[in-house]
């Protein structure tokens, strides 16, 4: 359980994080979303005890980052942006070093390292120096060092940065797998990543939280409505009839064409499916239904709305 309350962090006169509050529950996969420079990395660095907060409190399992930093560090596995690793060590030596610094007892170190290597699929690269690895494998070594001490919390800063599409799919699979037992916080500015991996989304922009909710909440967008797109051919005016249906809140005409073709957006409260009613109305009035689909607002649209509105 991570609790962030009114967190602020400034560097000189630059306000990187400005009064951010949120909770992360155990077992959650939280996506930290925001444009570059929004304060994602800074927030993560405060949680991992790399940077002290300028104001506010951050606690991990009830321990404060200011007073109990060493105890918190043992509970967290961290992969910083661009996976900085010691280039002149080979994979096994590096992971053994991390295991030792992570206070794993000498007798269990080899087993812990072997486990991390297996989970991250590093078997073929063991004797190579970290500096010689491709960026995909470097990222895996970065993940392996984050999980070697089996921490309950994983904090991953842009884990798929700089990877090719195949590697992205693999790393995402790996993170999802790890997320079954662990609390995972990952930052990204790629929206599809959030859709693929996260339970919950936090959008941060210019140091402030713009959105906090489930991924479904996000895709319902700002309006929070269920929207159905309908294209039909009708003799008279179908709009009035459709407005009369139960649950229908609004009917907007998108466009009209010759021959009585109308395209409409029909809004209903969230969780209500009005498609059967629309179909019934079409049958009743003899309209020809050419197309009907549920509209989901794309994450991209919502994200752009949230982060470009000066608020």
């Amino acid at each position, binding site marked *: 359980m991570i609790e962030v309350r009114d967190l602020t962090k400034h560097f000189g006169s630059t306000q990187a994080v400005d009064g951010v509050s949120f909770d992360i529950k155990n077992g959650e996969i939280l996506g930290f979303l925001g444009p570059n420079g929004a304060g994602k990395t800074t927030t993560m660095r405060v949680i991992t005890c790399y*940077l002290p907060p300028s104001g506010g409190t951050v606690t991990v399992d009830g321990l404060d980052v200011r007073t109990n930093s060493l105890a918190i*560090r*043992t509970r967290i596995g*961290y992969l910083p942006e661009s996976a900085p*690793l*010691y280039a*002149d060590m080979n994979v096994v030596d590096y992971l053994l070093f991390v295991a030792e610094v992570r*206070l794993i007892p000498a007798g269990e170190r080899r087993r812990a390292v072997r486990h991390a290597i297996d989970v991250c699929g590093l078997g073929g690269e063991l004797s190579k120096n970290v500096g010689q690895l491709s960026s995909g494998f470097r990222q895996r070594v970065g993940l392996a060092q984050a999980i070697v001490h089996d921490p309950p919390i994983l904090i991953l800063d842009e884990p798929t940065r700089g990877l090719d599409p195949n590697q992205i799919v693999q790393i995402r699979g790996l993170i999802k797998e790890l997320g079954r037992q662990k609390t995972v916080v990952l930052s990204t500015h790629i929206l599809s990543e959030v859709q693929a991996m996260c339970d919950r989304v936090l959008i941060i922009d210019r140091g402030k939280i713009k959105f906090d909710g489930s991924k479904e909440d996000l895709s319902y967008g700002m309006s929070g409505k269920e929207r159905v797109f309908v294209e039909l051919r009708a003799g008279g005016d179908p709009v009035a009839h459709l407005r009369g249906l139960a649950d229908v809140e609004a009917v907007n005409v998108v466009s009209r064409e010759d021959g009585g073709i109308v395209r409409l957006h029909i809004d209903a409260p969230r969780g209500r499916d009005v498609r059967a009613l629309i179909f019934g109305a079409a049958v009743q009035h003899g309209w020809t239904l050419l197309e009907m689909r549920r509209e989901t607002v794309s994450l991209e649209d919502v994200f752009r709305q949230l982060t470009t509105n000066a608020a």
Partner: protein
Amino acid sequence: MQNVWPIFKKEMRAYFASPVAYIVITVFLLICGWFFSTSLFVVGQASLRNLFQIIPFVLTFFVPAITMRLVSEEKKSGTFELLSTMPVTDHGVILGKYLAALALLGIAIGCTLTYAFTVSGLGKIDAGVTLAGYIGLFLLGAGYVAIGVLASSLTENQIIAFIVSFLIIFALSLVDKVLMFVPVKLASVFEYLSAEYHFNNIARGVLDTRDLVYYASLIVLGLYFSARALQRRF
């Protein structure tokens, strides 16, 4: 503090897995050996006095060379961020790195013990003076390494780390050589600040607490401010 050991080991491995350690030790021994042997037969005495005069000078650039990358490289490559989110204190990191550089220095200085054996084959060598000389050298080196670690903690740039530590060390070794230009009242202060003045005291065979306190405070202050420098993060 239990994490000093793995960091020490890692730094030792970094020295010896790359050519760094071999190159600096070779260069160190070449320079010391050259100056030692050229004058040995001219003087014609079975003593290492010569060596104890040349090594402090060699250390002014040898120590910066072995300490310059210790912290600055971690800062530059970002590995420090990862290291500092592991359960280690900044003091532990600094101490581990300091001890590794000191060990490398000890190995280099230890290699010159062969000169002592060579000379003792040629004539009777004063074991007490030789031992005192080596104790002095080790303390002098330990103080210099602390300065080198501090310089390395202050910057991300290894070249700057080298130059800054070289300047500080050079200044400390030089102050007792400019005493004649200094007002009489200040002379004793300058003398006390001089690293080589205390070394010469010890090398003469006098283990005075004043000299020990000098080196101890050099080490403690150097390491303390190094750890402070690490806490300032951006």
